[in-house]
C-alpha cells in the first residue's frame, strides 16, 4: 500500500491547472471559424475547398519544418495555431486564387510574419494578414479578381467587383452612392446571407457572427476589441453619411461589406497581436475602425481593414505600456 518515496512529486504551488491550454484555445478558434468555412465552401464551391486545403496544409507543413529543422526544437504543430493561420489566410483570399499564390501567401505568413520573430507569441503582426497583404501587393490581378458566387455546383463564374470596389470605382467616375447601390442591386439581406462577391470569408456576415458569439461564450476572447471596431466604424461613417449621403456610404453598408466582420471578430482579436488590457483593446479597436474608414473613403484601395489592423498591430507594445489593469488597493 505504501508508495515508495522516490515517486513523490514536489513543486511550488499551485498544484492543479485549469483545463484551458493553448491547444484548447486554438481549437476553439478553429471551431468558431467552421461556420464561415462551411458557408464559403457551399457558396464558392470546389475552388474554395482547394484554397483552404492548400493554405491550411502548407501553413502546418511550414510550421513543422521550421520549428523542427531551423529552431531545432520540438514541433509546435500540436498547438493548432498554424491551422488557425491557414484557415484565416484562406478566408481572406478570393476563391479563384491559384494554388501556388496561396502557397506563397502561406510561406510569407508562417515563414516571415511568424517564424522570423521567433514563432508563436513572438510576432508583432497577424501572420494571416501579413500573408494576405503580401499577396495583395505582389499579385494584385489575382487578388482583385472576384467572382459572383455560383454555388457549390455552379458552372460558369461571372466576373465582378466586390460592393466596396464597385462603389469606389463608380464614385471616382462621378456617380453618387444611392445610384450605384441601385444600379448594382445591393441589398443588406444579400450581404447578411452570402451571395456577394468577395474573399471567401467576407461573404457571410451571419456565419462570422455565430463564430464570434461562440468564442465570447467560451471565454476565449473578450468582446471589447470587436465591439469598439464596429462601434467606431458605425459612428464615424454615420457622421460622414449624414454630412453627404451622395459621396459616402451608409453605416450598415460599411459594417456588412468587405472584411470588416472577419477582421474585427477573428484577426483583430488575435491574442498575440492585440493589447492585453481592456482599455488598450478599446483604443486599439477605435484606431482600427477609424483607419479602415479613412482608407475606404479616401484611400486608393477600396478596402482597408487589413491595413488598419496591421497598422494598429504596430502600436500594441505602446498600448500595453500605457494601459494597465486596475490594481487592488492602488489608485
Amino acid at each position, binding site marked *: 500500500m505504501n508508495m515508495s*518515496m*522516490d*515517486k*513523490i*512529486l*514536489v*513543486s*511550488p504551488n499551485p498544484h492543479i491547472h485549469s483545463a484551458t491550454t493553448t491547444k484548447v484555445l486554438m481549437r476553439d478558434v478553429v471551431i468558431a471559424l467552421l461556420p464561415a468555412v462551411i458557408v464559403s465552401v457551399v457558396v464558392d464551391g470546389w475552388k474554395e475547398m482547394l484554397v483552404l486545403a492548400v493554405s491550411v496544409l502548407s501553413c502546418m507543413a511550414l510550421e513543422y519544418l521550421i520549428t523542427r529543422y531551423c529552431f531545432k526544437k520540438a514541433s509546435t504543430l500540436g498547438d493548432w495555431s498554424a491551422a488557425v493561420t491557414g484557415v484565416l489566410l484562406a478566408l481572406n483570399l478570393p476563391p479563384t486564387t491559384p494554388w501556388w499564390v496561396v502557397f506563397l501567401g502561406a510561406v510569407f505568413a508562417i515563414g516571415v510574419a511568424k517564424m522570423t520573430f521567433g514563432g508563436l507569441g513572438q510576432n508583432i503582426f497577424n501572420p494571416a494578414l501579413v500573408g494576405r497583404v503580401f499577396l495583395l501587393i505582389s499579385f494584385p490581378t489575382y487578388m482583385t479578381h472576384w467572382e459572383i458566387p455560383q454555388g457549390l455546383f455552379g458552372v460558369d463564374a461571372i466576373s465582378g467587383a466586390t460592393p466596396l470596389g464597385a462603389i469606389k470605382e463608380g464614385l471616382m467616375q462621378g456617380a453618387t452612392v444611392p445610384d450605384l447601390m441601385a444600379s448594382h442591386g445591393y441589398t443588406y439581406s444579400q450581404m447578411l446571407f452570402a451571395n456577394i462577391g468577395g474573399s471567401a470569408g467576407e461573404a457571410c456576415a451571419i456565419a462570422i457572427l455565430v463564430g464570434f458569439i461562440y468564442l465570447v461564450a467560451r471565454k476565449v476572447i473578450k468582446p471589447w476589441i470587436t465591439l469598439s471596431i464596429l462601434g467606431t466604424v458605425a459612428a464615424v461613417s454615420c457622421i460622414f453619411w449624414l454630412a453627404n449621403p451622395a459621396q459616402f456610404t451608409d453605416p450598415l453598408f460599411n459594417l456588412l461589406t468587405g472584411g470588416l466582420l472577419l477582421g474585427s471578430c477573428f484577426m483583430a482579436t488575435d491574442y498575440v497581436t492585440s493589447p492585453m488590457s481592456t482599455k488598450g483593446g478599446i483604443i486599439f479597436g477605435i484606431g482600427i475602425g477609424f483607419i479602415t474608414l479613412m482608407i475606404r473613403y479616401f484611400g486608393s484601395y477600396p478596402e482597408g481593414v487589413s491595413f488598419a489592423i496591421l497598422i494598429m498591430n504596430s502600436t500594441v507594445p505602446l498600448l500595453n505600456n500605457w494601459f494597465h489593469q486596475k490594481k487592488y488597493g492602488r489608485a
Partner: protein
Amino acid sequence: MTTTIIWTIAIISGLGLLLALTLYLVAQRFKVVEDPRIELVEKAMPGANCGGCGFAGCHAFADSAVKAPNLDNHYCPVGGNETMKKVAEILGYEIKEKAPMVAVVRCNGTCDARPRTSEYDGSISCKVKASLYAGDTGCSFGCLGCGDCVAACKFGALSMNPQTGLPVVDEEKCTACGACVKACPKAIIELRKKGPRGMREYVCCVNKDKGPSVKKACANACIGCGICSKTCTHDAIVLENNVAYIDFEKCKLCRECEAMCPTGAIHGVNFPKPIDKDAIKARVQERQKKAREAAAAAARQAQEPEQIKKEESNG
C-alpha cells in the same frame, strides 16, 4: 540650366555647413569632460563587464580606480595580476599581487552516491527549488542541479555533467569573477587559491548534519569525523558544524588528509602522480603512534616535576 545646378550646389553646401555647425555646437555644449586616464584604464581591462570586481562593469571600475587613493579596493579577478600591473602603471600606483583563484564546486553528491528521494516538478532554477524545499535528495545542503551557476557564468566555464548531475568548472576558462558563487543558493561554490600548477586540496562537501544521517543521504559526504583535522600537521583543517574545511592559505598539499578520509570527501586535483593512500596511511599511523608514545612518556615525566613544584610552592 546652369542656374539650377548652381542653386542646387549652393543649397546643399549651405545645408551641409549649417548642420555641421549645429553638430559642432551641440557637441561643445554637451561635452563631458572625463579624466583621460579612465579611458586608458578601461582599455587595459578585459572588457567582459562581468562585475566580478564588485563594480557595475569595466568602465565603472576604471572610473572608481582613477579616483581612488590606492588600488587596495580594486582588483580585477578576470584580468588578474597582469591587468592590474598595467592599471597600476597607468595610474602610478603600487599593487599587491594576489594569488590566482578558481571556482570550486564543493559537492560530490553524484546521482549514484546520493539517491533521489523525490521528483522536483517546478521551474528549472536552483533559487526556486531552494526556496521550496531541501532538495530532491536526502541531503539538504548539496547541489540542486538546476544549473543557476552555469547560467550565471559569462565565460562559459561551467557546465552540467549529465552523468553526475553536478556542475563542472573548466579551469582554463574560469576567471574567478565570483558570479557562480553569488548564484548558488546553497553556497556550495567557493573561490579557492588555484595553487601551484593548479594543485589543490579541498573538502568536497558542505553538509552540516550529523554523521549517521549524512551517511544515509550521500555516500560521498563529509561525515564530520574529524580524522582529517587530527591528521593535518599544518593546522589547516577546521571542523565546524560537522563539516571539515581546508584553509587554502595554510594547506601544504601533503595529501595526508585525502588519504585518511574514510568517505573520500577530500579531493586533491591536478597532482602529477595518483595518490598512494596505503603508503601515506602507514606513514601517518606510524607518526601518530610515535606521538602517542611520546605523549605518554611526557605525561609520566611531567607528573614527577609537578609534584616537586607543588611541594616547592607549598614550602
